[in-house]
């Protein structure tokens, strides 16, 4: 077929293609195509064009449109072609309309009739062409018009037609499940079709159906298994062999289906073991397709109820993949590893080197996949290395999409596993600096909260050191040009709150810096608002401390500018600042006590402080409040609830009252903070502190003391600090509220408004992340996820006390500390609710892995041990001990030497380094100085010295 004369398109088309091929620039190509469009427009509307010509025009139109130019003028001609009697013309017409039109196009109505007719045609090719169009062009409304014919075609003698009819039906199901729900049984029937092609095609819709509803298809397990068995035994026609594999594509689809059906179902899974094992054996791992089937087997094995033998085969296959030279196979290996570590985390260890190789591979796809895997296997022991790697990679890429993704993963990991708060702050600084505004704002809020709450232990020195170091680092970073807005907000807030707290910097220095920020980023109102509020705080602290306040000239000019600002928010803030400065020390102190952003704020839900007022009003003849249940036709306007309660009651309006706590929070707050927070979620203790008790800000009313409003914040996710994890994680009801109030630690550092928002955000975040995290954590670490999530107490105490013997003591001590702090630290029942309702049964089943893991990584072990004891109880530790026949101390030395023996490879060294660092950092954080020194000594004794770049941290904290 060599010469071009052999092509049946005309010379013109040939020239067109040629000239486009030779076009040097896009502009030249566009010119040629536009010329072609003109020609086609002219020609196509001429009368009496021969069919053959017309067909060519249409093909040329399709071509033009493929190149990205509008060919809509010819659509109608394509539609006309579908009416033609000639098969070739008709098929061309159908091809063109399926490419040109979408299901909602106006011209569809002209085609439906033709399709209906063609579906009844005697010529099966016409039927096929029509079915093709059906797939693409029929929408929900037109389904009934063709449905009967399509169903009839399921029994068509030609297998090609049956196949396509099945797919068309599948398409209908995708578009509108309800319209074909009564026909779903047809898919099952077609599974027994004589033709393997039809059977194979039927697997597609069945896969979709099973994905949606596994349980109604459990009865098919046996059938699928027997089909798979037959396929694997080469019972299908030879034509389906591909590279010596019997129908590999069908095998893959079947394995996918089995993976779904066997997931979490022991009985169903048992039926599959034999056949999957057979395929593992039979697969030819030298061909690409053989590996595809192998990979699918691994996926299947990791999804169904675990079987040790199969897991072993899977692990073998994975190591073959990872050792292969082919990048494709490495990629698949990494992916498969990510799946398998969910059930047997220990296998990751043997592939460490391969994984690190992939991480350093120039292939970006592979690199990303590997980061995904690392993300999956992160635990508190390796978080530093992994997050460092991620940040390095994040800095190196330009693609915003991946930057965002990686940044959010870094943040997530850091929040989850941070070994120390200081490390967390440093990591966040890096993320903010490099990913900037790609980071979600709630991350910033979390960071502020962390700084405000500190360690959550009664260790004020450490807290203030943390803050000072944060202030130091921020003052340093402020020197850099062009910082992202989110980061600046954090900086302003921290400087305002703690800039002068340690006396290192003078108020004028800090205020000067803040003014600089406000000037340098004059386009960013949010940042300016943060800056003004920070200024206000600094001045308030000064006044409260009794010193005289001199406003810097640049600050004054800034204020003048803001007082006349177009932004009402800025204006308000500026006026507030003015007002605060004019007050005396006592008043200022009660408005803005220093470092009180974390104080509890109690919210009196019953609004009892209004009782007297209501009494008065009722005596004066106002209507009493009618409970919601007794009202009808209520005004569902939540806005009204923003009004003060008394106002509401005196009007006697019918409100939808107080049933949803979160609404209450939202609605009650705005009147307090007024317009100032409309746009800007700016954290200011001033509002927080003042507004809650008093309900009105600016007036600074004096009834502050008498009120006991209680703010409900039980949805707030708390990652650090005292482990007052609020029990109600769901959007729970008011009933849980009472208990919550007592323990919920309120971060009073934000404006009321911003807090509301944050509440929502963190609540949302919780909903979003938890299932995933829980699953991950549960499968990777078993019960340990619970404690690992809370590094604050969890690690610090037990972390590096590597002696097994200590184990039984360690958890106890942590308990003690916990109880001292009177917060329900240890096992908030809600945490368990997340993914695994039954810990008791779960923890033991996962234990073995964790124990094995412990063999390789000393730190986790202890952490996990601790978890056992905290979840399951101390009885667990004898079990663990039982596993090691050695003496506990001996084990550890052995482990370490194991790891050390791997030191020869640089990446591993790095890894190890990280681990040690973690240990050290963690050990240093123990609440008990002696303990931590001891642990540190132990770590050194084991031959790992903290050669890490930041031993300062460690020194810092030890004091």
């Amino acid at each position, binding site marked *: 077929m060599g010469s071009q004369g052999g092509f049946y398109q005309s010379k013109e088309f040939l020239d067109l293609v040629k000239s486009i091929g030779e076009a040097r620039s896009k502009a030249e190509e566009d010119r040629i195509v536009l010329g072609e469009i003109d020609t086609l427009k002219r020609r196509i509307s001429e009368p009496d064009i021969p069919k053959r010509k017309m067909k060519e025009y249409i093909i040329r139109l399709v*071509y033009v449109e493929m190149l990205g130019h509008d060919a809509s003028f010819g659509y109608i001609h394509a539609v006309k072609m579908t009416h033609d009697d000639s098969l070739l013309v008709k*098929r061309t017409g159908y091809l063109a309309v399926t490419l040109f039109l979408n299901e909602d196009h106006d011209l569809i109505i002209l085609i439906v009739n033709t399709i209906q007719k063609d579906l009844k045609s005697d010529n099966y090719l016409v039927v096929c062409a029509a079915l093709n169009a059906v797939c693409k062009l029929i929408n929900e409304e037109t389904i009934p018009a063709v449905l009967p014919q399509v169903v009839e075609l399921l029994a068509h003698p030609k297998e090609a037609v049956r196949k396509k009819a099945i797919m068309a039906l599948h398409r209908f199901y995708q578009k509108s499940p309800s319209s074909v729900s009564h026909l779903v049984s047809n898919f099952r029937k077609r599974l027994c079709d004589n033709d393997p092609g039809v059977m194979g095609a039927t697997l597609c819709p069945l896969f979709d159906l099973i994905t949606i509803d596994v349980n109604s298809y459990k009865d098919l397990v046996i059938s699928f298994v027997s089909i798979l068995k037959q396929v694997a035994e080469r019972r299908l026609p030879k034509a389906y062999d591909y590279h010596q594999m019997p129908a590999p594509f069908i095998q893959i689809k079947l394995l996918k289906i089995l993976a779904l059906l066997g997931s979490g179902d022991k009985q169903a899974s048992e039926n599959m073991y034999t056949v999957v094992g057979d395929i593992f054996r039979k697969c030819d791992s030298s061909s690409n397709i053989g590996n595809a089937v192998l990979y699918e087997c691994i996926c299947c094995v990791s999804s169904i109820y675990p079987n040790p033998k199969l897991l072993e085969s899977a692990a073998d296959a994975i190591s073959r993949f990872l050792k292969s030279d082919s990048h494709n196979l490495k990629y698949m290996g990494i992916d498969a590893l990510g799946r398998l570590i969910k059930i047997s985390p220990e296998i990751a260890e043997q592939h460490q080197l391969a994984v690190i190789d992939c991480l350093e591979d120039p292939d970006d796809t592979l690199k990303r996949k590997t980061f995904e895997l690392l993300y999956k296997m992160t635990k508190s022991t390796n978080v530093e290395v992994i997050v460092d790697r991620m940040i390095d990679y994040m800095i190196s890429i330009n693609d915003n999409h991946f930057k965002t993704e990686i940044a959010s993963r870094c943040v997530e990991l850091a929040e989850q596993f941070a070994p120390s708060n200081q490390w967390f702050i440093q990591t966040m600084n890096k993320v903010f600096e490099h990913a900037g505004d790609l980071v979600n704002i709630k991350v910033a809020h979390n960071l502020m909260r962390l700084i405000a709450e500190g360690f959550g232990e009664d260790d004020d020195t450490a807290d203030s050191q943390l803050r000072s170091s944060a202030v130091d680092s921020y003052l340093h970073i402020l020197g850099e040009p062009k910082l992202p807005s989110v980061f600046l907000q954090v900086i302003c807030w921290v400087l305002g709150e703690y800039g002068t707290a340690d006396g290192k910097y003078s108020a004028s220095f800090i205020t000067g810096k803040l003014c600089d920020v406000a000037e340098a980023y004059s386009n960013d109102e949010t940042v300016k608002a943060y800056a003004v509020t920070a200024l206000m705080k600094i001045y308030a602290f000064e006044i409260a401390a009794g010193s005289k306040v001199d406003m810097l000239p640049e600050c004054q000019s800034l204020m003048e500018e803001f007082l006349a600002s177009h932004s009402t928010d800025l204006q308000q803030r500026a006026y507030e600042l003015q007002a605060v400065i004019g007050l005396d020390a006592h008043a200022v102190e009660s408005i803005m006590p220093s470092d009180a952003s974390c104080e509890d704020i109690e919210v009196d839900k019953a609004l009892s402080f209004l009782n007297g007022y209501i009494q008065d009003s009722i005596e004066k003849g106002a209507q009493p409040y009618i409970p919601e249940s007794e009202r009808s036709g209520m005004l569902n306007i939540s806005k009204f609830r923003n009004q003060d309660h008394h106002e509401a009651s005196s009007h006697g309006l019918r409100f939808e009252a107080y049933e949803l706590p979160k609404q209450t929070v939202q609605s009650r707050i705005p009147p307090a903070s007024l317009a100032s927070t409309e746009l800007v979620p700016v954290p200011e203790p001033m509002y927080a502190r003042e507004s809650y008790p008093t309900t009105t800000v600016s007036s600074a009313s004096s009834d502050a003391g008498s009120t006991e409003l209680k703010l409900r914040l039980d949805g707030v996710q708390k990652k650090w600090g005292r482990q007052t994890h609020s029990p109600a994680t769901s959007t729970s009801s008011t009933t849980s509220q009472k208990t919550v109030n007592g323990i919920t630690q309120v971060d009073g550092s934000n404006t009321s408004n911003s807090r509301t928002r944050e509440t929502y955000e963190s609540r949302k975040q919780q909903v979003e992340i938890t299932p995933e995290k829980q699953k991950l954590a549960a499968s990777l670490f078993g019960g340990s996820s619970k404690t690992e999530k809370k590094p604050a107490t969890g690690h610090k105490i037990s972390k590096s006390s590597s002696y097994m013997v200590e184990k039984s003591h360690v958890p106890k001590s942590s308990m003690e500390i916990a109880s001292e702090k009177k917060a329900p630290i240890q096992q908030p029942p809600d945490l368990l609710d997340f993914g695994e309702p039954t810990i008791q049964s779960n923890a033991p089943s996962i234990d073995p892995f964790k124990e094995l893991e412990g063999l390789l990584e000393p730190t986790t072990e202890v952490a996990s041990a601790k978890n056992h004891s905290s979840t399951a109880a101390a009885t667990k530790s004898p079990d663990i001990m039982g596993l090691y026949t050695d003496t506990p101390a001996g084990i550890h030395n052995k482990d370490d030497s194991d790891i050390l023996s791997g030191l020869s490879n640089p990446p591993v060294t790095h890894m190890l380094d990280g681990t040690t660092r973690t240990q050290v950092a963690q050990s240093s954080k123990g609440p008990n100085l002696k303990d931590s020194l001891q642990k540190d000594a132990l770590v050194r004794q084991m031959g790992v010295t903290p050669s890490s770049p930041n031993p300062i941290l460690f020194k810092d904290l030890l004091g």
Partner: protein
Amino acid sequence: MIKAVMVMNTQGKTRLAKFYEYLPVEKQQELIRGVFAVLCSRAENVSNFIDAESIFGPDSRLVYKHFATLYFVFVFDSSENELAVLDLIQVFVETLDRCFKNVCELDVVFNYSKVHTILDEMIFGGQVVETSSSEIMKAVEEISKLEAASNAITLIPKSASGWRSR
């Protein structure tokens, strides 16, 4: 499900584009350009897989294969297996090769509708319906024969009959 099939040459000229979910022309072009930009930047001897989420949105992967002057690109979601799709490309190309004998870029350009026919036999509404190259060939041959027979005007010229006789 398979979201799109594209064939483009090494200069970025589209030779075939088929999207299984409707997209406006401009969007299609944008995606094709996006894909080409990524393909260009790929070194040799790297994997054939690309994480396409930044181009095609969540849950989309891309597998490509480079043959002479052409890139064959399949975009699909997590319900397919990457390696298998790589072989699906192989099946597609093998079929083209059997159909055109030593298929080259120009065959794809000039036998536009035939390439579509082959693809339609393989992938129907985004699902893989046929993976056997010889079955696809059989179907395509039959279509050509009937098309030829049903047409008063002989539209299937030498080229198409050429491969049949061979």
